[in-house]
């Protein structure tokens, strides 16, 4: 009986040991699985963080690219507006030049009771005969004189826009003496006025003067709109000498 009991106990011990080994192995496996799962969680957390960063980064880049595109488009619009303003300014300058040229043309023949000059002289019963870049021919009570444009009175300078340095100052005339370099200089910069450089007319004049015996161009008579003593007026060229001293031949009209 005792042997049977001892055998039974031994069997139970054996079963216990086997179960213990089996159980320990199972727990080890479960622990390993847990560790693996923890490691995977760690990796996935890293992956999520990386992907969040990448997504945020790409979104920021996309926003910046879109902003750059919008700014570039806006710049194109502003540049077009600037071009439009420049063209409008060019047109306004051309119009200004034409206005001044017309007024200058119409000034020839102007009659004034008196013309006080900057040099102190006062000319009486003045009639303006001719006008060029530097001087003006006037007929007055004491004969014919050439007057330097810089000696002209301010109101006449303003009218003729000598050097385009005088500004009308709001059309009230109060600023006739005020030298303003804003608009006039802008036009001068744009090279609109003939004072800036001699034009073909001036070249022609010089050429004629250097060769007084030339007969001139008879075709110029076709453009003449007004005549005076030894002078003829051609729009755009002003009063030109007629005869051997000028570009217009004495005979022809």
């Amino acid at each position, binding site marked *: 009986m005792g042997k049977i009991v001892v055998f039974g106990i031994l069997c139970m011990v054996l*079963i*216990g040991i086997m179960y213990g080994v089996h*159980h320990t192995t199972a727990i080890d496996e479960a622990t390993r699985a847990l560790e693996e*799962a923890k490691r995977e969680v760690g990796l996935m957390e890293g*992956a*999520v963080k990386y*992907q969040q960063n990448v*997504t945020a980064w790409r979104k920021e880049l996309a926003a910046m*690219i879109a902003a750059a595109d919008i700014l570039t488009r806006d710049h194109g619009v502003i540049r077009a507006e600037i071009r439009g303003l420049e063209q409008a300014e060019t047109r306004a300058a051309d119009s200004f030049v034409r206005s001044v040229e017309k007024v200058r043309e*119409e000034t020839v023949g102007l009659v004034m009771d008196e013309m006080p000059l900057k040099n102190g002289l006062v000319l009486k019963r003045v009639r303006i005969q001719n006008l060029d870049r530097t001087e003006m021919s006037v007929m007055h009570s004491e004969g014919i004189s050439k007057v330097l444009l810089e000696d002209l009175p301010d109101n006449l300078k303003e009218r003729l826009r000598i050097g385009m340095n005088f500004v009308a100052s709001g059309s009230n005339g109060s600023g006739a003496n005020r030298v303003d370099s804003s608009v006039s200089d802008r036009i001068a910069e744009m090279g609109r006025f003939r004072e800036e450089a001699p034009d073909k007319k001036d070249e022609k004049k010089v050429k004629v003067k250097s060769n007084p015996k030339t007969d001139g161009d008879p075709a110029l008579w076709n453009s003449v709109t007004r005549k005076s003593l030894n002078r003829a007026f051609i729009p755009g060229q002003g009063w030109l000498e007629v005869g051997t001293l000028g570009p217009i031949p004495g005979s022809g009209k």
Partner: protein
Amino acid sequence: MPRPLSVLIPLFGSLVLVLCSTGCGVKGKLEEETQQLRSVVMEKKMEVKRLEMESASVGNLGRYDIPRVEYLSELKDRLASLKRDGARLVAERETKAQSLKRMEDELSAYQTKFPSNN
């Protein structure tokens, strides 16, 4: 008086049973924890996929498509430069508009003061 073995056998049996039940509890706990972590991993995988889709929905960024640290600063510099250019262009437009207005005003004043017959 009972024999010592008749007492030891039930005691040993009880011990084995206790050990078994405790061991089973530990294993179950570990398995349960592992299962929870696996479900967390699944959630994280889903989140990564969602983020990838969100990132893809941004579209192709051209040469900036591959994220690089220097791209961000490059674009920031470009934006700053564009903003400076914009401010300069706006100022230039303002200047041109003022210049045009001055010229038109002066022309108008001149034509009013010295009307031409032509």
